[in-house]
């Protein structure tokens, strides 16, 4: 009798410890999530607040939405031009990277080539190179051939970010398609290019989209290339944003509105491909 009583108490103790343990885990995770998204909440809410409400501390949570900042940046700071520039540059560099990258990745995964492994490692090591190493010489070369502040120049520069990434990412996806499929298509009389573009690429649709999204992400979020190689005509959104914080004037309301336009689309896109985020960020080392 005595023994049984002790046992139930023991169980209760373990159970309550587990409960506390779990509560602490929840608390830490929720706190971390709040810290992670707080600045983003701040961005969205401040963009909709009237200029005077931005400065109220502690921050107010109920306010009348005010879209005037968006109108201001569109009218006075030609937000639209920068947005289009960002769009042109990121889609251009992504398109080229996907095309060249899928050819190269297909060759690297499907054929046993002499030195193929070395080529693959050489390509990925370019992705790890700090951009500044390439920027200074590119700046000198671009001034000579008149590519500074042009879309083509910036697209070329961004290819150093997107192409090595696309090659490695696509190699991972190609490896998941069994070779038997290629062979079957070849037997049916398909050409090598036909196999790649009509059979294999459609099969890795999801992976292709993920690769594209992350190429767009690198290109869209890039600041150092755009800031060094463009001034006005081809400047992208991050360049415009960095200009809001001058040495004397800080245009907060304009920043918040532009910040939403710059950050929201890319965050939404990334949400749809979050399954591949880790894979993309580790060059395919972790799936």
């Amino acid at each position, binding site marked *: 009798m005595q023994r049984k009583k002790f046992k139930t108490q023991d169980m209760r103790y373990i159970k309550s410890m587990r409960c506390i343990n779990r509560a602490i885990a929840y608390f830490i995770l929720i706190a971390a999530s709040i810290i992670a998204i707080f600045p983003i909440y701040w961005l969205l809410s401040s963009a909709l607040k009237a200029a005077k409400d931005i400065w109220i501390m502690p921050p107010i949570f109920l306010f009348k939405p005010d879209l005037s900042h968006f109108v201001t940046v569109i009218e006075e700071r030609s937000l639209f031009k920068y947005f289009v520039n960002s769009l042109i540059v990121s889609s251009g560099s992504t398109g080229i990277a996907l095309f060249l990258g899928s050819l190269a990745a297909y060759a690297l995964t499907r054929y046993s080539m002499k030195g193929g492994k070395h080529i693959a490692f050489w390509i990925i090591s370019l992705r790890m*190179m700090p951009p500044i190493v390439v920027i*200074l010489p590119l700046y000198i070369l671009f001034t000579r051939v008149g590519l500074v502040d042009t879309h083509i120049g910036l697209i070329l520069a961004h290819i150093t970010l997107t192409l090595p990434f696309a090659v490695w990412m696509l190699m991972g996806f190609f490896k998941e398609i069994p070779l038997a499929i290629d062979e079957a298509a070849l037997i049916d009389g398909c050409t090598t290019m036909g196999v790649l573009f009509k059979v294999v690429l459609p099969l890795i649709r999801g992976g292709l989209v993920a690769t594209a999204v992350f190429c767009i992400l690198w290109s869209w979020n890039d600041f150092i290339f755009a800031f060094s190689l463009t001034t006005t005509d081809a400047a992208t959104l991050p360049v415009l944003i960095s200009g809001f914080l001058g040495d004397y004037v800080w245009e907060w309301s304009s920043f918040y509105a532009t910040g939403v336009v710059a950050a929201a689309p890319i*965050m939404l896109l990334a949400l749809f491909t979050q399954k591949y985020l880790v894979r993309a960020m580790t060059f395919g080392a972790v799936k």
Partner: protein
Amino acid sequence: MKKRKVFYIHKLTPYFMILPAVIVLILIAIYPMVFSFWVSLHRWYLGRPHLFLFIGLENYYTLIFKDSVFRRAFLNTLVLVGVCIPVEFALGTMLAVLLNRDDIKGKKIFRVCLIMPVVITPVVAGVLWKFQFHPFYGIINYFISLVGGKSIEWLADPRFALPSIMIVDIWQWTPFVLLVLYAGLLSLPREPFEAAKIDGASEWQLLKHLTIPLLIPIIVVVLLIRTMDIIKVFDTVYVLTRGGPGDATEVLTLYNFRVGLNYFYMGRAATISWIIAIFVILLAQLFFRILGTEFYKKRT
């Protein structure tokens, strides 16, 4: 192998397929880097572009032994690596282990929240934090004042400027470490854990003797990627402090940018680039050495 080769009559096809990418990369990455090395052996000021004077390794000598700002930038970069990476790793591991617990619900929601800092445009994140570091209107000083502390001039005080940058970096990249480690945890086999639990291992013992040893390759990958990323940090520092006050937050990439594209001392800037490059190449070598075989599995 032999059977497959029958189909590939055109032995040169793969080379033709890989060629465009290789040519493009040589033109826009390798050629500029070689050119940059050539420039680094010269004294070249873009204000007087025709004076292109060969001086051998003098630029390297001057930078390493005579340039105090460069040394400061190097030191700051090392401090960033030394502080941010351990903190991000510790926090990331803790959160990943918590998120991986069976009794936690709503994992998807936590994941979505924690993905956001990783994918937000770094310039936007930097400016958002610049506001929060504001001595009067920022939320950080507001919380400090709530607990009765003195307000801190985060970005204007040399003592707090570098820690401010660390805070932003930790905010932005801890979730990345967490997500990678969480993915690693999910990929671990279940059996050894069940066996250990039956044998009566405690949570802590499981973590120490099973989880961490099994995760070592992934841990190394994440640490190396973070190190290489911190060495190239530019956006955040530029937006928050531009290297100031004084040279309190000068980092390698920013100093490199400044010497090259603000002062136009191209020879010296190219030299800094190459010093950074050598640094990163060594790290990347380590990356490949540790993961090389696993990293490149050919299923042909």
